[in-house]
């Protein structure tokens, strides 16, 4: 055994010591399998809006979703990649979980193709109107029954941007957390993480495992998934659970179980209205160059 292998082996022996004991059956299976790392990744299926023109829908409380392309939330994509990299390095399993409707299977297929072993979709018409708190509670109802050393998710979701699912889930699970993470090292029963602060500063902190870490974009370079990978993933089963499969009641989910209720959506007020330069590209270029010149910058 090389020195590195030796170290890695020792690292996850240590990880094993700090395993969360959820239930005996799970614990036995872990012992049988010897030491490895079980990671849960929480993902969200969201519309891509960074480059798209978006409109407020007829209800005035949501955007018009037709015509938008949906994909895995960008932050969750980095979390997924990080999970798969740990699995490749240390062995173990990656389970992807989402709360969403059937179309969210697209995001789960991507997780499976990327290297997740298992995918779970928690789905129920009664979840409609859930905010991040209700979503975290639904995730908790499922995650608490699974064995995990680490839960990874995006620091925020590109649609609602609440920035709260990860730490709420951690609190409900009674485990530690770190948010806005740009680097993770595992070993000796802890996760050492670089957290992104403001202005280019980072802090290094250490949290005990098991833990929930929320990932900031740029932590890694998510790999592209091959067509073959996606084809293979199409054959894998996606487990679906509904409200009845959880220990939650109707009052725990949807609008009733949420902290935040959206009343009205509107176009942001303009701070400084831009003067729009119109014409063909040549004319526009001439105008811009003149503006820059008028400022004495050419």
């Amino acid at each position, binding site marked *: 055994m090389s020195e590195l292998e030796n170290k890695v082996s020792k690292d996850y022996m240590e990880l094993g010591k700090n395993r969360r004991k959820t239930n005996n059956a799970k614990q036995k299976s872990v012992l049988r399998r010897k030491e490895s790392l079980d990671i849960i990744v929480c993902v969200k299926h969201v519309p891509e*809006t960074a*480059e798209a023109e978006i409109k407020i829908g007829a209800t005035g409380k949501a955007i018009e979703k037709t015509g938008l392309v949906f994909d895995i939330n960008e932050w969750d994509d980095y979390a997924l990649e990080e999970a798969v990299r740990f699995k490749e390095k240390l062995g173990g399993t990656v389970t992807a979980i989402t709360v969403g409707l059937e179309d969210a299977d697209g995001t789960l297929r991507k997780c499976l193709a990327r290297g997740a072993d298992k995918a779970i979709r928690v789905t129920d018409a009664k979840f409609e109107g859930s905010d991040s708190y209700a979503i975290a509670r639904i995730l908790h109802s499922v995650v608490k029954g699974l064995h995990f050393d680490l839960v990874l998710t995006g620091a925020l979701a590109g649609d609602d941007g609440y920035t709260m699912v990860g730490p709420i889930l951690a609190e409900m699970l009674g485990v530690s957390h770190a948010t806005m993470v740009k680097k993770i090292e595992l070993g000796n029963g802890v996760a050492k993480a670089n957290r992104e602060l*403001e*202005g*280019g*500063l980072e802090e*290094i902190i250490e949290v005990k495992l098991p833990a929930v870490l929320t990932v900031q974009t740029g932590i890694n370079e998510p790999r592209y998934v091959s067509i073959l990978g996606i084809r293979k993933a199409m054959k894998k089963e996606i487990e679906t659970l509904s409200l009845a499969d959880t220990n939650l009641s109707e009052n725990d989910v949807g609008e009733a179980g949420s902290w935040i209720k959206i009343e009205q959506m509107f176009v942001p007020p*303009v701070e400084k209205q831009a003067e729009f330069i119109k014409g063909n590209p040549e004319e*526009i270029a001439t105008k811009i160059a003149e*503006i820059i010149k008028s400022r004495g910058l050419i």
Partner: protein
Amino acid sequence: MTEIFVLAEHRQGQIRDITFEMLTKGRELAEKTNSDLTAVLLGKEVKEQAKALSEYAKKVLLVEDAKLENFNSEAYQKVLASLIKKHKPLLTMIGHTSFGVDLAPSLATALKLPLGTDCIDLGFEEKTLFITRQMYGGKVNVKATVRKSEGYIVTVRQAAFEAQKPAANGEVVEEPFPLTEEITKKRFIEYVLPPPGGIDITAADVLVGVGRGIKDESNMPVVEELAKSLGGVLACSRPIVDKGWLSNDRQVGSSGKTVKPKAYIALGISGAFQHVLGMKNSDLIIAVNKDPNAPIFSFSDYGVVEDLFKIVPPLKSKIYELRGRKA
């Protein structure tokens, strides 16, 4: 009398701007709800900072302990939970900063108090808390209500409110460190400064900022050449650094640099708040974006609704023409 708590954020001895911004908004809310404004300061040897805060609030609650020297959400959460249980503030305001997002969600969950995050405005109407926040990268705003409760917690976006100094002369009240148990789950190790060297985008007169609209790394020379023609420097929004197309010393925004050049030309940047925070005070802002509703246009002097690839090449030629030389 009910209270409004503002959690002071400080790092390496410095109180951060968000604290004064929240105290300004907190003062307005306290007046409207007939409450007292209280700044909450947790730290180690921070009496001087407590004194500074007393000029902004009716009261400064000060808790000092070695465990509070550096921000640690586990220690902060336990101490703050104890203070909230004791004082029962109507509202606790925390910055929507890297510290705040590590603290507020688990604190709210532990206390079973509802939390509204990343608020750009908030207020009480008939005892209901209304918050305004943004969605979809700042492309829409929403007004939302927070579930009715005895107390609320919010995180407040940086620079959402302008800090004003009132003529307050508050008292500093020391509270004993309430924890008997150890902090065991989380440990602060150290700060990591950005690597020295690299390019200083804050010193440039002309910045060409590039965003997602550039699409592919192979297109980067298009914007590099424009920056060169202007004698300017290439800067970017976060996704470009995340993809590794430019190094992070080129990043403009809350997690990068704050710049104030004589001209900022934003190409294919939608204008999410995090980016805008770093460049909105530039003398001249010209934005090119395909999306006519891109938030960047609300912060620009001039806007062009067009594909950047159609504008940049002729623009580069025009600039060389004005400079009297060939590209």
